């Protein structure tokens, strides 16, 4: 049994005018110890996927149009909110994008971590939980004498370390990191990534990393899923994806990464824009921007299927080496 299995998940956001199709049939499966990076541009459905796993989608503004999210075989979408509370934080934890606002400004950082621990272990005394919190904070590189301070006394990088400490406090099996380093500057970014890498390895935590930075996923993740317009277009191991990108979109994406060794006037871009999220798409969602589009693409929707070992693809006319 897979740890996490998402089957054909469809999610709409409800607006006055039309339903926004945020996810159009996501299928994904994770084993224990996997690390997967969800990569895609804004609006591709990366965050929606993450939020739906934890059941954090706004209830009145979103609707699940089908599919299932199986956690150790149980469908999370069918769980009551009480049952979900037990899963959240304890089994699946999440790190949010902006560390500046992810901490309660009124509670000292060690108490915040301790709170998190006590939420899932009610029998623990306050003193014991504070002791555990201190250990946890030390493990993310916060000095002991600073643990008794308020979040506003911390820098952005330190706050994100605290957030990571909180997320890992109950040793969750799955950690979802939603662009954990976008709000940080580059040097701090690499420190935080390095820290996450070590901690994940030590604890054997499964990781879902959301980002639009291919550099970050290549450091942290073994598998990469390329998302576009609420679908996964290509799913492959890191090496295969970088060495042998098969989907035209992935091709374009990799081509648009600037190479510092080559002098170029302009960066390569993909022409056009992603489709309107309210549109019902009959064929492949990438058709209008695709240079390899054939007739079949317009009328039939490609399904993610294994092209090579550990390399799945949703495309009728992919690039092939040879």
């Amino acid at each position, binding site marked *: 049994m897979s740890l996490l299995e998402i089957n054909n998940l469809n999610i709409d956001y409800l607006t006055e005018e039309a339903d926004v199709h945020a996810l159009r049939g996501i299928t994904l499966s994770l084993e224990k110890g996997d690390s997967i990076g969800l990569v895609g541009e804004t609006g591709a459905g990366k965050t929606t996927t993450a939020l739906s796993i934890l059941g954090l989608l706004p209830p009145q503004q979103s609707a699940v149009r089908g599919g299932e999210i199986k956690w150790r075989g149980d469908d999370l979408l069918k769980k009551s909110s009480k049952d979900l*509370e*037990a899963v959240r*934080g304890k089994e699946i934890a999440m790190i949010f994008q902006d560390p500046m*606002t992810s*901490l309660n400004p009124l509670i000292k950082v060690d108490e915040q971590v301790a709170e998190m621990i006590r939420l899932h272990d009610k029998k623990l005394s*306050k003193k014991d939980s504070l002791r555990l919190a201190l250990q946890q904070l030390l493990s993310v590189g916060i000095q002991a004498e600073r643990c008794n301070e308020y979040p506003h006394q911390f820098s952005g990088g330190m706050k994100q370390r605290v957030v990571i400490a909180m997320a890992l406090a109950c040793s969750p099996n799955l950690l979802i990191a939603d662009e954990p380093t976008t709000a940080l500057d580059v040097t701090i970014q690499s420190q935080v990534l390095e820290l996450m890498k070590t901690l994940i390895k030590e604890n054997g935590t499964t990781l879902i990393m959301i980002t639009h930075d291919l550099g970050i996923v290549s450091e942290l993740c073994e598998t990469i899923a390329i998302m576009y317009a609420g679908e996964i277009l290509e799913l492959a191991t890191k090496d295969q994806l970088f060495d042998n990108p098969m989907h035209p979109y992935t091709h374009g994406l990799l081509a648009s990464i600037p190479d510092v060794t080559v002098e170029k006037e302009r960066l390569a871009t993909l022409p056009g824009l992603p489709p309107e999220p309210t549109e019902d798409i009959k064929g492949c969602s990438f058709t209008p921007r695709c240079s390899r589009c054939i007739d079949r693409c317009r009328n039939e929707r490609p399904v993610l299927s294994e092209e090579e070992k550990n390399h799945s693809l949703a495309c009728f006319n992919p690039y092939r080496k040879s």
Partner: protein
Amino acid sequence: MSTKINFIPFIKRLSRSKTAFFGLIFLCFMLLVAIFAGVIAPYAFSEQDLLNTLATPSMEHPFGTDEFGRDVLSRIIYGSRISLLVGFISVAIALVFGGFLGAVAGFFGGRTDHYIMRVMDVFLAIPQLLFAISVAATLGPGLGNLMLAVGVAAIPQYARVVRAGVLSIRSLDYIEASTASGGGKFYIIFKHILPNCAAPLIVQSTLGVAFAILVAAGLSFIGLGLEPPNPEWGAMLSTGREYIRDFPHLTIFPGLAIMLTILSLNFLGDGLRDVLDPKLRR
């Protein structure tokens, strides 16, 4: 709340603002006066000296005497008990019920919010004093009823303030983060949301205590508050009104008592807001 405020540094920070410190000192003084009224007051509040009515301030009666020859100072001292009690208890009533309704409305939103807030709107449409009068008239006179009337009339205001605070805090990342770490709804409301919208509530509450004292005085004036001879600052003020031309000490001293108490409450409220906001801590 597990966030304990260390008392000594708290006072230190508060005393950086002179006005807030004055407010705190004066309120402590009033509290002591109220508690030890029986010891401090030179006369009993209902003791009449009919040969010495409407006396101007003297050594014997520092604040003079009223139309029945009762010592004004003693009546102000005993009256502080009633005013402070009414002020704080009625605000506590309004805070607990209004706060709960506002928090539920703001947090759950949608239909719950709609129903609660429309009912609150109906009550807000009635002037608070009128509403208090009708509640007091229904319940009858007496200290408990007075507090209830003033408190119930203030519930909608607190519901509004709390709801507005909850709405602005609810959408912040650390609330979502807390949900994501398995916090229940009421845990999040009490642990994360309410403490973070305490600042406007503190200001509203201190002003509310002041306003409650005024409303209570108004109710006493029309006979719906405490019955005579119980001393009540507002009632003293309104009976003194008749003699204001010839014996202004009957209005000046209770008026001063009300003014200083309300002023120090307002000063303290502003000072507390500055101190309780950790972002302003240095």
